[in-house]
């Protein structure tokens, strides 16, 4: 789960970078950058949840 989290964070940034190179309109770029940020946050959330489940132990 940690690895997926890292990959999602890097993927989100690549989405941001791709939008800068491939898109020209401000609105389109804005949408893709926000989408990239959301993917990154998803990755961070996965890592945080993994850590939390380790700390809490089995229910």
């Amino acid at each position: 789960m940690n690895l997926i989290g890292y990959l999602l964070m890097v993927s989100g940034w690549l989405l941001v970078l791709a939008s800068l190179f491939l898109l020209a309109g401000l609105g389109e770029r804005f949408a893709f950058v926000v989408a990239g940020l959301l993917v990154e946050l998803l990755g961070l959330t996965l890592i945080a949840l993994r850590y939390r489940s380790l700390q809490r132990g089995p229910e």
Partner: protein
Amino acid sequence: MTPDLCLVCILLIPLAATGLALIHQGLGRSRSAAHAMLATLCSLAIAAIVFVLIGSSWMGFSGGLAHTLHLAGKSIDWLGAEPLFATSLTSNLTHGLYPAFVLAFGIFAAGLASLIPISAGTDRWRLAAICATSALFAAIIFPLFAHWIWSNGWLTQLTPLFGLPAFADLGGAAVLNVLGGFAALSVAWILGPRQGKYADRIATAIPGHNIVQVLFGCILALIGWIGLDCAAAILFYRVTYTQILLTVINAVLSASAGCLAAVITTQLRYRKPDSSLSANGWIAGLVAGSAGCGLLSPLATIFIGLVAGALVSLLVETLELRLFIDDPGGAISVHLGAGLWGILAFGLFAPAPGPRSALILAQLIGIATLLGVMFPLIHVLHRLLNKLIPFRVDADGDWQGMDIRELGAGAYPEFVVHADEFVPR
């Protein structure tokens, strides 16, 4: 640039480090106080040496040598290429005093950022691991991102590359605080909570041992932060004298608003103001206000400080109670949370040369880079380092305290120590 003023501002920065050191040792246990202060000194010392030897080369300076990457017909400046060991200071004087000023600033800035994670690892992070982490931070992490923002790197070249405004961070909210905050989060995750913090899955309050020092540290941090904000704004944004004065005013206003917001928030939530959270609110205000210190209006700065102060109180609680992250000094909430808010707030409130959405977009690109490149890099490097030099002290040391365990003597030898404190529970 006004060299004399810049030099005075740079000389004030160590007071910010002193303030942070007092805050994180005061918020830790008394049995780890000397360790926390020594760790701060070691961290500053190592960061200074490593930054001069290696980091300054990769940070570079605006107009200096740099590595570029050619991609889709665009030249992306991604890393400084100055000679190692700062040899260009004496051998190449074509740029005048500027490289020396950047180097002097970088020594203190790298040191200040590298000691932020100590706050999250208080009471359980080994001294050797702290030193190794500081070296890593000053050699790789700080110079890389500082180059992108302050040395004409790709994030400041968004206009020629992509037709967007440049990402701006006048006082180091991103370069120092968010990077330091991410390092703190990574360290807190690797170390895990202190023993007894989450007995039976319920968070136990472990209050700081010296709140007077914490509050005194806030005052020192204010003076240091004013120096930090002014020096960075003068060196990297060539602000005018009026903007330097505005920077001073804004630093005081943002800290005041942050502290008052935290006092009010804790009064409303707990019926009494919480002094440690209020101290965190003060620093959070400074952090959030530093992103746009010389360009924002005082009114906008007060609003930014108020949000930062309220945000930090909520974040501390969320991290501790919901995410099981034990951060004794509140470094993650203060430096990471308020830093990210400050960067975004610059896009919302700074004077925009074109459409407001373009400025916000530039700031979001910076945040995405911090989250998608810098945090994974920091966390992976920390995890590798943890394999070489284990971060966490052993179970006995956790209860004994870091002072006795690692230094052989306590910070307050005249205090009566209860025997049951050394019995593992």
